């Protein structure tokens, strides 16, 4: 039996950032901003004793409990979780792989809509994170800034007049701010322009990473764009570098690529997308990579109007809910890889059976 049955209820829902309704949500999955902060009166995590970690966790928890408007948060003691529950939170992007695999006292506080998450005792004492659906970095920045202000009211942060907010790793020092936008770029991948586009981004202090790739090196359709530097610029400038200078340009290229694909062979594209939907909704066994590969095609099909009656939020949700820990939570029991493939196919069938991909071609 899996411990902490409460997560099985959480598994039925999905976070606010997956709803697929924010600005540019046909291409931008989510916007995320995190702030790295450390307490002034403790060493950084690597040099903390077990007692230090416990003291940090308790003290931050007490301070968060006393925050107004923060009464309905869920405070999760990661140390006490089973491995599958940790994996579940990683898949949901509420915690990092690093904190899931770490030792000692550590926790995460999450609001019911899963917009806010505060990790305690990650690489830094605090990692304050806000996620929004679509391209909405301004809202994300305002929210994370406000929460940071509230926490700062009762927590004395490690700060240096010259170097700013002090972090365990010098790549985060200064603002401690990392802006990350997750993009779905199948058009640029199919038209083989993705590397060209990203090479042109390299000179302007942003990092681009392919998130998932399956089948061949050209079919990884999810990319994350983040600021590379954290020191020497105001937070607002780093937010606008990613949100106003870089991401809109990539969106424009992706739209052009999609237009090109439609003009070049709408019937071929429609066929490809419909076959993907066909496999997802009828397969009896399907791996996680194959699912991701076909869901990516279907997602583009929905956004191009080639598939009717399938909200993009549903597809976003399926990307997360078909991952190993989610499937097992939804089933309420542990499953081996082969059983998961069967269960994944059943789950997909149940959620996609009403969609047959026969949008009017005209």
């Amino acid at each position, binding site marked *: 039996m899996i411990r902490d049955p409460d997560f099985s209820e959480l598994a039925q829902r999905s976070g606010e950032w997956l709803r697929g309704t924010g600005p540019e949500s046909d291409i931008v999955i989510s916007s995320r901003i995190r702030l790295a902060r450390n307490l*002034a009166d403790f060493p950084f995590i*690597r040099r903390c004793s077990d007692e230090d970690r416990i*003291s940090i966790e308790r003290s931050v928890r007490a301070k968060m409990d006393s925050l107004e408007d923060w009464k309905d948060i869920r405070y999760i003691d990661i140390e006490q979780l089973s491995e599958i529950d940790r994996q579940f939170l990683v898949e949901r992007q509420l915690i990092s792989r690093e904190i899931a695999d770490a030792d000692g006292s550590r926790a995460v506080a999450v609001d019911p809509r899963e917009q806010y998450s505060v990790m305690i005792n990650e690489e830094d004492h605090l990692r304050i994170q806000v996620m929004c659906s679509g391209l909405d970095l301004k809202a994300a920045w305002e929210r994370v800034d406000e929460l940071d202000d509230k926490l700062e009211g009762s927590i004395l942060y490690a700060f240096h007049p010259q170097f700013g907010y002090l972090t365990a790793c010098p*790549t985060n*020092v200064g603002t401690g701010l990392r802006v990350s936008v997750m993009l779905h770029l199948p058009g640029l991948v199919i038209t083989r322009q993705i590397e060209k586009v990203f090479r042109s981004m390299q000179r302007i202090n942003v990092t681009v990473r392919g998130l998932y790739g*399956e089948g061949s090196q050209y079919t990884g359709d999810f990319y994350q764009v983040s600021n590379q530097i954290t020191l020497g610029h*105001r937070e607002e400038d780093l937010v606008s570098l990613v949100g106003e200078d870089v991401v809109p340009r990539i969106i424009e290229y992706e739209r052009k690529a999609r237009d090109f694909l439609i003009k070049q062979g709408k019937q071929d594209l429609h066929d490809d997308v419909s076959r993907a939907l066909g496999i997802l909704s009828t397969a009896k066994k399907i791996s996680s*990579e194959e699912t991701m590969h076909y869901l990516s095609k279907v997602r583009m099909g929905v956004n191009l109007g080639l598939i009717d009656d399938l909200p993009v939020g549903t597809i976003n949700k399926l990307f997360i809910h078909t991952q190993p820990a989610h499937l097992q939570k939804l089933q309420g029991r542990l499953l081996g890889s082969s059983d998961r493939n069967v269960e994944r196919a059943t789950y997909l069938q149940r959620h996609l059976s009403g969609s047959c991909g026969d949008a009017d071609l005209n």
Partner: protein
Amino acid sequence: MKCQYCEKPATFHITELTEPTGPQVMHLCEEHARGFLQKEASSPAASIAGALAKQLNLGQTKQELAELDQKECPVCGISFFEFRNTGRLGCPYDYTHFSSDLIPLLTSIHDAVEHTGKRPCRAAAADSQAQMIQLRREMEEAVEKEDYERASEIRDQLQIIEQSGGSDETQQEDQA
């Protein structure tokens, strides 16, 4: 095709686009791909190593490097060697103690050495931060020795420093 790190079939083919040497293709099994992507997402140690290598190639002699490696923070005890190896500092005071050694590194990573963004409304001076970390360690030791009187004295001291955290230069600047 097999995974680069084990015998399992490579089902993930990741193209790293931000390598300075140009795009790099990796062929990994699901498990190694997950590890790689999640590690990459949260750990910029690679860029630290790169920046440090660049910095250390510039004009430092072997002897200077060896001396620097042995330098230790008086508060947390971390050596520069340890920092170089892990890419992680040991405590906030390292930024003061290793300040001149970190500046070339920060320039290389951020192309800047001066924070221009948000400032907390309360912040303790570097010395008080160091003092607090040391006092906390003494308090833990006192508790271990069951010297609760001493531990409670230290706790009071800590509270006083923490409460006076607002009286440092940051706030003075704000008030000026």
